[in-house]
C-alpha cells in the first residue's frame, strides 16, 4: 500500500469543552498518527458550525463546567440524530467527562435543571446537589484493553441502563457513581469516560484502538498499526498507577 493514509477528526466544541487538559487527547492522536505517516486532519466544530458526521472518521468531545454544558446543549441536541446514527454505524468516538454525560439521555444538574443529551449511550446522569461531594481522584480501570489510568473530577453520578456496557470496571477511584464499580460506557466504537489527565497520552493502547478502528472503517479490515516505542508512555502510565494505589491505601 503506497497511498498515504488519512484520518479526519471532528473535535466538538474545543473552545468550550476543554476544562481538564482535554486537548491532550488531540495532541496524542496527532502524534501517534504522524509517527506512522498517517495524516490527521482536525476540524474544530463550535456552536453553529456546519457538521456532517459521515464526513469524519473520528469524533472527540471533552469536558466542561455545568454552565458550559448548558451553553452547548441545544446545539448538540440538534446534531444528535445524525451523530447517533453515525456512531450506531461504527464511527469511533471518545467522549470525556461533560461530553460523556451529554452522550447519555440527560444530565440533571446541581440545581435540578435537565440538560438533554443525545442518547448515544443508554444512561443518565444526576447531580446529587450542591452540597454533595464531588468524585475527585486518581482512577485505575480494568478494561478489554488492559488497565487504563486517569483522573476523575465530576459532581454528577452516572447510571447505566441494564444492558449498557461500561467502558471498564473500577479498580481504584469512584467511577460512574461511586456505587456499582462501573466506569464509562462503550457502544460499538464509541467510548465515554470520566477519565482525563489527559487520557490518551498515558493510555496508548486506547489511542491506538481508536486510530485502528477509524482506519479499518475507512480503508478496510486488513489495515494494521505498526508499533511505536512507548517507553515514555508506559513509564507515565505506571507512575499514575503507583500514585493511585498509594493514595488508595492512604485513604483506607
Amino acid at each position, binding site marked *: 500500500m503506497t497511498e498515504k493514509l488519512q484520518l479526519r477528526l471532528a473535535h466538538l466544541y474545543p473552545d*468550550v469543552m476543554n476544562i481538564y487538559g482535554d486537548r491532550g487527547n488531540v495532541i496524542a492522536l496527532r502524534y501517534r498518527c504522524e509517527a506512522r505517516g498517517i495524516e490527521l486532519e482536525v476540524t474544530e466544530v463550535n456552536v453553529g458550525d456546519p457538521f456532517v458526521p459521515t464526513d469524519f472518521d473520528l469524533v472527540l468531545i471533552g469536558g466542561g*463546567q*455545568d454552565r458550559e454544558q448548558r451553553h452547548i446543549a441545544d446545539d448538540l441536541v440538534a446534531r444528535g440524530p445524525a451523530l447517533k446514527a453515525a456512531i450506531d454505524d461504527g464511527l469511533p468516538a471518545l467522549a470525556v467527562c461533560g461530553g460523556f454525560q451529554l452522550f447519555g439521555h440527560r444530565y440533571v444538574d446541581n440545581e435540578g435543571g435537565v440538560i438533554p443529551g443525545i442518547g448515544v449511550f443508554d444512561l443518565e446522569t444526576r447531580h446529587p446537589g450542591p452540597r454533595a461531594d464531588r468524585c475527585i*481522584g*486518581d482512577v485505575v480501570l480494568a478494561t478489554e484493553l488492559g488497565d487504563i489510568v486517569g*483522573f476523575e*473530577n465530576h459532581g454528577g453520578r452516572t447510571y447505566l441502563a441494564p444492558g449498557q456496557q461500561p467502558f471498564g470496571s473500577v479498580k481504584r477511584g469512584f467511577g460512574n457513581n461511586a456505587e456499582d464499580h462501573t466506569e464509562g460506557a462503550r457502544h460499538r466504537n464509541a467510548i465515554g469516560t470520566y477519565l482525563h489527565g489527559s487520557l490518551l497520552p498515558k493510555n496508548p493502547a486506547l489511542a491506538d484502538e481508536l486510530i485502528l478502528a477509524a482506519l479499518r472503517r475507512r480503508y478496510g479490515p486488513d489495515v494494521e498499526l505498526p508499533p511505536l516505542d512507548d517507553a*515514555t508512555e508506559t513509564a507515565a502510565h505506571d507512575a499514575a498507577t503507583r500514585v493511585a494505589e498509594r493514595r488508595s491505601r492512604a485513604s483506607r
Partner: protein
Amino acid sequence: MHPRLALAVIAGKSAGAVSRRLGKGGGTAVPGLVAARIDPAIVSDLGRQLGRGSVLVTGTNGKTTTSRILASILDAEGVPCLHNREGSNLMRGIASTLMGRTGLSGAVRDGSETLGLFETDEATLPLATTALAPRALAFTNLFRDQLDRYGEVDTVAALWREALAIAPPGATLVLNADDPSVAEFAIGWQGPVHWFGLDDAALATGSAGAFDARWCRACGANFAYERRYFAHLGLWRCTGCGRARPSPQTAATDVRLSLDEAAFSVDGLGVVTMPLTGVYNVSNALAAVALARVLGLSGEAIRRGLANVHPAFGRQESVMLEGRRLRLLLCKNPAGANQVISLLASLPGDELKAGILLNDRDADGRDVSWTWDVDYERLAGRVARCWTGGTRAEDMALRLKYAGWPAPAAVASDPGAFLDAVLAGSHAGDEIFLIPTYTAMLDMRADLVRRGAAARFWANQT
C-alpha cells in the same frame, strides 16, 4: 482584652517557636493554627487594632508578587505594615502574621500606625473579608487553577461574590480591567472602583493559551477581542450588551521587557523600572500601583518601591550553583506556565536548557492534567537539553515528548538526583531555567540550601 485572646496568643507563639526550633519549617502557619483553636475570632480581634485598616489581595495568579510590590512601596513611604509575605494566605497564615507583632497581652505593637496587607487565598476571601472589614480589595485575575482543590472557575467566582456581599460598602475595589471575569465584580458594586490594565498593542499575542472566560455574565453573549495579551486577558467587548473593558485609571504603556527587568510608563508617574519581568508581572505591578494610589501613597514612593522590590520566593530568583546560573520560575497553573513559556520563547537563540519539575501534592493539585493546557510546543526546536523532575517526572517527560522537545537527559523524581543530573549535564557558565510547581520549588529550594546555594527563605525574608 479578653483572656481567651491572650491565651491564644501565648499558645500560638509557643507552638511556632517549637516548630522553628525543631527545624520543621518557618513556622509561618503554626502559630495561627494553634491560636485559632483557642480563639476562633483571633484575626478579627487583632485586625481591628490596625489603625490604618487592612487591604486584601486575591486572584488566581500574582497575589504574592502584587503584595510584595505594595509592601516595598509602603516601605519606601515609611508606612508600617503587617504583611503575610511568606505567602501563607489562609486564615491561619493571616493570624500568624498578626501574632508576630502581638505582645503576650494581646495588643498589636504600634497597631494604631499600622496597615494590614494580606495576600488572601481565593477560597479564604469570604472569611478574611468578614474578619478584617478591608478598606480595599484587589483582584488580580481569575484563571483555571487546581481544579481538584477548588472545583470549577465558577465556584471561585461565587465565593468572591459572597465576599463582596459582606465587604464594607465604602471599600474600594481594585480590579483588572483586562480580565472580563474580574471586571464583572464591578457590576452592582456601590463603592468606588479603581481599574488597572495594560495599554500596549505590542504585547498582543495570537495564540494565548487556555481560555477561561467566554460569556458575559450580564447578558450571556460571547466576548470579542480586539487584542489578547494572554489567556482571556485583553481588550474585550461583549457582543451582546456592549459592556467593554473599562478605561483604567492606572495603565501601563510602552512596556519593555528583558530577562532581568521590566520598564513601562504609567500616567502620572513617567517611566518606572522593576527587577521583575514578564507581562504578567507588569500586570501585578499595576495592581500594586493602583492599590498604592487608593491608599494615597506618593508617586516617589511608588517609583522607589517598584525599583527595590525583591522577587518573591522561587519567582524569578536566580541562584548560582557550581558556576551555573539557575533561574527559578515558579509555575502553578496553565496561565502562569504559559507566561513562563512566553518569556523563554522571547529569548534569543535555540540552545535553551530547561528543567521542569511537576509535583502532585495537595498544594500543587493532585491532578496533573493541566500540563496539557500549557503550550510547551512553542519551545519545540529551541531547547538543547532538558530534565524532568518532581513526583510526576514521568508525566512531564511524556508531555514534553508530545510537545516535540528532545528526550530528557534525566527523569528524576528525587530532588537531589534531579539537581545532580542537571549538574552532570551542564557546564560552569551555563544558564539553566528551572520551572517547578509549588511544592517542587520547596523541595528544590531545600536541596539548594543543603548545597549552600540558597539561604533558608524564612531567614532572609522576615
